[in-house]
Each structure stands twice: as C-alpha cells, then as structure tokens.
C-alpha cells in the first residue's frame, strides 16, 4: 500500500510546496515512515535550459564518490552551476545521504552521431547509477525530485519543500513491501523530465527490466517502480509513440476488445510491446514536461481519484487529499482501469504567476 497525490495547474501558475505537503500528510495510514518524496516542475526558472541533476551520495560530502561523479560530469557536460541541496535535519529525519544538484548541458562534441542529446543524458544517468554509491534522483530541466526515508511530511520538512514553487507537484507516501526502505528507493522515480509516483506492485518487473536492459536502461534502485519511468521514456521519446499509445502499451485492452474493433495499430502495439506491459496492481501519476498522466492497471486494483477545480487538476489515492485542498470541485471522478487521464499543460509563456 502507498499513497500518491498530484496537483497540476495547466496555466502553469505556481503553487508552493506547503499544499502538496498537506495533501499527502493526511494519507498517513497509507505509508509506514519508510519513504516519502516529491517531484516539482517549474522550480528552476533561472536554469530552465539546463538539465538539473539531483544527486544522492552515500556517505557525506567527503565521500570519494562525490569527486568521482563530479569528474565524470566535468568530462561529459558543461556544469553551469553546482550546489548542495539545502536540508534541514529534524528529530524525525535526523540525517540522510549527501544531496547535491548540478545544472548541466552535454558537451556537444561528446554526443555520438547515433545519439540524441537526451539519449546522452540517459546514458550519463545510467553510468552514474552504476558507479556505486551515487544515484541520480532526477535529471530533467526545470524540475527536481526530493525524496528519502521518513513520512512524506517529514521529508517535506527535511528539504523545506514549502520554499519551492511549482506548477506541477506529485507526492508519495511509501509502505515498502517488496524492497528495502532506503533513500534511493523512495518515490518519485525519474528519468529526464519524467517522474513517476506509484501505488502498487509490478508483477511483470522481471520481464520489464530485462526488456529495458536491451535499450540501455538499467534498473538499479531495487524498486519495481523505476521501470515505469524508463518504459514511458523509451516509448514516447525514443520510439515516438503518442502518450495515449504509450499508455495503451503499458495497460493494453484485452485481445477480445482489439479483435472486436479490429484495430490494426493497437494490435501491432501489443505485439511489439508485449514486454512493456506493466502487470499487477498499480495506480500512477506520471509527470512530464508537458503535463501529467494518471493511469491504473486494467483491473483497477488500486484506488485513484481525479478532480478539477478551474485549471487545477488533482489526482489522489484518496479523495480526502483533494477535498482538503479544494473543498468544492468542478468535477471529480474515479478513472476506469487501463484508461489513462491525460492532462496537458498550457504553453510555457515564461511568466511566473503564483496561484
């Protein structure tokens, strides 16, 4: 069991982190204090053209792995800015790994002709994750993930997320059952601009993981959820599937239904992407640079409620989180299993209005 919340303002009006902190806090029963985390979009407007690498290092600032990763980044990227991520230890979360963020751009001459810039970033992330002792918590532009071991409201306080302003937020309250509660295993799981918070257990993990390895994605975070962000990245960015089709690949209609409507494209998606089907119970909020996707497994074995108030959209494991933030809503519904809810952000005009 886990709890998830998403808040999306499609006008890109900024919301400070105190709202999402409250929304996930009241789902306390859905976690057990072994993991909480947040993803925030729009938090680095000054560096919005650079990839924001949030790094988690085992040990402290003197760990040799820090220098190793930094040397690697210097070799592969232009590092525009680097700083410690400020943390505020308290009596509930006394201490954790060492966090740092880097704003980087690839060195153009290092990108191979068969790679895109983003392939290059993915390769960089995968390399760092395999170095041992360092994990890339997030790597997208103008976004970042903050996560750790504790209840989510305590993790929020640890990172002071109320100090960040974002137009799209997700939060996660973890109740780990299949893998250890460790800082890297908290949600969200990210790659480039994609971040996933997930409630469920992926029974197809072995198939998904071995499939992803063929395409250069390595699952090292000991948690099933990371396959979702990688699958989505591969399908949409590398293979050019629409978001809708990518959701169909991950949670396809029954063959019976595909036969009935005689849809050749859907048939082909199922045939080609069988190993990308995400099986087992899940409810996810998957955010990306242009919006958010809410998706359930096709048997709807996990709760997700969606709502809209004006141009602010909500998704949550429980309705209470939504009602807490917005007692009156324009609409509220429970999406059907396997039917994605796609929320598109408005164009980025560069203005920074606070909601």
């Amino acid at each position, binding site marked *: *069991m886990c709890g998830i919340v998403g808040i999306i303002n499609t006008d890109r009006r900024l919301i400070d982190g105190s709202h999402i902190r409250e929304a996930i806090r009241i789902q306390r029963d859905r976690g057990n204090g072994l993991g909480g985390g947040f993803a925030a979009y729009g938090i680095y407007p000054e560096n919005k053209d650079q990839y924001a690498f949030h790094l988690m290092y085992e040990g402290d600032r003197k760990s040799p792995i820090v220098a190793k990763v930094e040397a690697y980044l210097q070799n592969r990227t232009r590092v525009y800015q680097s700083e410690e991520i400020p943390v505020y230890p308290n009596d509930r979360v006394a201490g954790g790994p060492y966090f740092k963020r880097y704003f980087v751009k690839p060195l153009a001459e290092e990108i191979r002709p068969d790679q895109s810039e983003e392939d290059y970033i993915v390769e960089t992330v995968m390399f760092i994750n395999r170095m041992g002792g360092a994990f890339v918590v997030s790597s997208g532009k103008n976004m970042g993930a903050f996560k750790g071991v504790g209840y989510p409201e305590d993790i929020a306080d640890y990172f002071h997320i109320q100090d960040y302003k974002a137009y799209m937020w997700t939060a996660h309250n973890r109740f780990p*059952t*299949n893998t250890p509660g460790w800082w890297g295993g908290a949600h969200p799981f990210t790659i480039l601009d994609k971040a996933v918070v997930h409630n*469920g*257990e992926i*029974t*197809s*993990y*072995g*198939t998904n*993981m*071995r*499939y992803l*390895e*063929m*395409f250069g994605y390595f699952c090292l975070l000991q948690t099933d959820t990371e396959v979702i962000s990688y699958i989505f990245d591969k399908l949409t960015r*590398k*293979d*050019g*599937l629409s978001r809708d*089709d990518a959701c169909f690949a991950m949670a*396809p209609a*029954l*063959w*019976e239904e595909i036969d009935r409507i005689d849809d050749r494209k859907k048939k*082909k*998606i*199922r*045939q*080609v*992407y*069988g*190993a990308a*089907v995400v*099986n*087992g*119970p899940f409810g996810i909020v998957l955010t990306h640079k242009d919006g958010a996707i809410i998706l359930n497994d*096709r*048997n709807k*074995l996990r709760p997700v409620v969606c709502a809209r108030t004006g141009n602010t959209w909500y998704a949550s494991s429980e309705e209470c989180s939504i009602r807490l933030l917005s007692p009156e809503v324009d609409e509220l519904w429970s999406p059907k299993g396997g039917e994605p809810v796609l929320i598109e952000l408005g164009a980025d005009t560069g203005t920074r209005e606070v909601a």
Partner: protein
Amino acid sequence: MGIMQRNWSVIPPFFPEFDMERCDCANGCTICSRECSFGEISQRPVRGADGKVYYRPWANKAACGACQRCAKMCPHGAITIRRAPMHTSHDYWTTDYVNNIWKQSGNEGGVLLVGNGATGPQRRYFDHLMFDACQVTNPSIDPLREPMEIRTFLGRKPDTIDGDMGPQLALEVPIMFGAMSFGALNLRVHEAEARATKAVGTFWNTGEGGFHKSLRGYGANTIVQVASGRFGVSEEYLKSAAAVEIKIGQGAKPGIGGHLPGEKVGPAISETRMIPVGSDALSPAPHHDIYSIEDLRQLIFAIKEATEYQVPVSVKIAAVHNVAPIVSGIARAGADIIAIDGFRGGTGATPLQIRQNTGIPIELAIAAADQRLREEKIRGSVSLIASGGIQCSSDVLKALCLGADAVYVATPVLIALGCGVCQRCFSGKCAYGITTNKPGLAERIDVDEATEALTRLLRSWAEEIEELMGSMGISTIESLRGNRDRLRGVGLSEEELTILGVKHAGA
C-alpha cells in the same frame, strides 16, 4: 565349434502377471493376447475342473516392454506389469548395461536402437525451479472471474512501432505439437493433431515426412518441415502451411540422420514423401547443402522467396553446448523462429548412446539462448520455442519464464493417445496404433476420439497455466515471458543459477 555355448538370451525387463481369480479366460476372453502386438502373450490350453479344455493367457517372457496395452485393455483388471526381478547384485553393473552387452555380443549385435527420449539421471531443472505467488501486497487473480490472456505471436517483431512486422503465427495457447513425421506416425494421428490444433487455435508440425494431401485443408494450423532428406518438399508443399521449419537437428539424436525402413514405405507414404514404394527413406545427418551458417541463410531465404515472405521460417536445432552463439547466428541468418530441442526430446528411433549422452537440458539451453539474444539486442528479431522433455503445464510456464515464447510438446501427444512410453516406436508394432502403419494396428486410433483427447490436453494445460499466472498476479502471458524474477531455484549451484538467471529461494 567353440567351447562356449551361447545358449542364454537377454532377460526382458518386464512381464505381464495374470490374476487368475479375475481373469475371464474360462469364458473365452482372449483380449490380452489379441491386444499385445509384440507377441508377449499367448494362450495355453488348460483343462478346467469340469474336464473341458479352455485357453488361459501366458506370458512368453520374451517381448514385454511395459507398454501397458494389455493391462489397460483387460476388462477385468486382471493384468499387472511386473519388472522382471533380474539379477546383478552389483550396484555398478546394473541390468541395463549387462543386458545391452548381451544384446550387442549376441545375435543382433550392432548399434542399439531405442525410441522416445533420454532416460538418464541428469538433473531435471524444472523440478528445481519454483514459482512465486501473491501474498498480501498484491492480489492474486482468479482466472474464473478476471480475464486471463495467453495468446502468443511467433515471428520477427520490430523494436519499435515503425518497424516492419514479419509474418506471425497466432497461438491461442503457447503450446504446439512438435515434429513427428508421417511414416513415424500414421495418418490418423496426423489428422487428430491437425484437427485438435485447429479447434484450440495452435499449430502442429508435420515432421520431415511430407504433408499428406488429405490434410492440406488444415494448412492454417500446420508447420511443415524441410529436413535433410527433403521428403515431400515442393513449392506447393512450402506454400501449403502457416510456417516452414528447417530441421537441422533434434534433441534425441543431435548430429544424426534418420532412417525409415523400406518395408514401412507403402503407397501413401511413398506418395507423400515422393519416394518409390518400398525404398528406404534416408535422412542424411547434415543437410548436404548446409555445411555452414551462410548456407543456412541461403536456404532460409530460398524458402522465403518460394513462400513470397508470407510465412515465418523456423529453424529447429538440438540443444548442444554452444547453443547460445548458434542461436544468435541463426537469428542473424534471417530465421523468424528458432526451436531448441533439449536432450530429453523424443524420437521414433535413435542410437541409444546418442540419446543418452548427447546434448544439454532444455532449461539451460533456453536460458542461455534468451540471454545471449538480449545481450546482442536482437531478442525481438526472433521467437524461441523450447522443447524436449516438457512433461506438464508448469514446465511450459517455467520454460516461458526462462525466455521461451512457446513450446513444442510431442511425447505428451503420444501419451494422450495411449502411449506407455515403452521406447519401441521404431518396431512398427506399436500396440496403440500410434507409431505404426500396419493394418490392424493403425486402426486402433479412432480419429474423433484422438482429436478429443488432444483438444482436452491442450485446454487442460491452458487452464492450469492460467491458474499459475493468476496466483502470480499476472493477467497476460507477455508479462511472464522472460520473467525470471518470478522463479526461484532450490538446491542449485551458483553456476546453475547464473546460467538460468534465477535467484536462489530465500533471496
């Protein structure tokens, strides 16, 4: 004249024992002796209490192979097949070895021939692999209440949606009937295989003996084989089926050809194989136009040209030591499907020494091949079929978890039709009428009944596979394919676990 008098014979390892209290011979029942096609049971005159002579069954102790036909057909349950309590106090020189030496030094001499698959003590890895199941953290799925999908497509698939899809075979259950030729089997069995696979939505394989004209209507569920003897191969033959399989080797006799004796080649087999009546049908050990991988590529594409790229081309090999790189080579040579046949795979006839000692287990072979194709990033370009020793539905699913797309089963087909796995398929005397074309025996197969038996077998296994998937919380079979994470090994060494790609139980 030598001094030694070779006046002993090999002791047959089995004999039928008759419970005379149950036996109805006094009333004239002679079913057992008529059912025994090997000449083990005769009838002996005895005088009854009333002074009348009647006939009782008698074990000749000369030919019993424990096929169990007599025991199964006795309406009174009066027959038990006993293992002959043969000698050797010696734990090393066991009955089999002693008997074989007697045979080879006796009148018969020569290469020992057997049917069916290897019987040796090598580890059955399937038994050391355990499935996972859902408990608490995710719900298992009840296949009676929720949809459960096991449809499978075999054939080349692109890595991305924009790529070209090769021709596909659609299987409603991930189980096909493996290659057994017309000649080795009789036409009735072929017809039952064709009808059952059509009813269930899967495929059967003609083997190398051609595709009888009366069954061509079942082409949509048929895979035809091109083997080293090229029996029955014509353009029309290639185009008559849903897929064409090039047979390089088989698990029961890797590197060995085949031999259908001339006496078995009657008019129907002659016509189907396109050879003269009464001539020996010899399959050379290698294809004499395939001495290398590039030759195989030419044959694959010759077949694709002939079939206008409308059907997938499969290549079947025996699981041998170097299986992984061989499979990679075959994939790159253009095959759409590769069938790997483990050393337990059966056959109509094989030299005993080859059957027992050549090849490797299918579990290790399929795991190694799947892993190699993934490392080379070409797994999608080819489908893998596992075969050779698959005994039940959980073996099927374990093979899939290890990396197979589907399986071939063949011995289970024979068993479903009655076979007692007596290993004498080559004798032409099959008491069940399966591996014989002899009039009087072949008719023991009733095609309708055989079709039903095979249909039930496929459906039963499919149902069991769905149960197993449900317990693992998996609603569609593509999520188990290559999913070694849902298997754990019990009692396996680190090296075995590494090759299988499976963690030990408890880890």
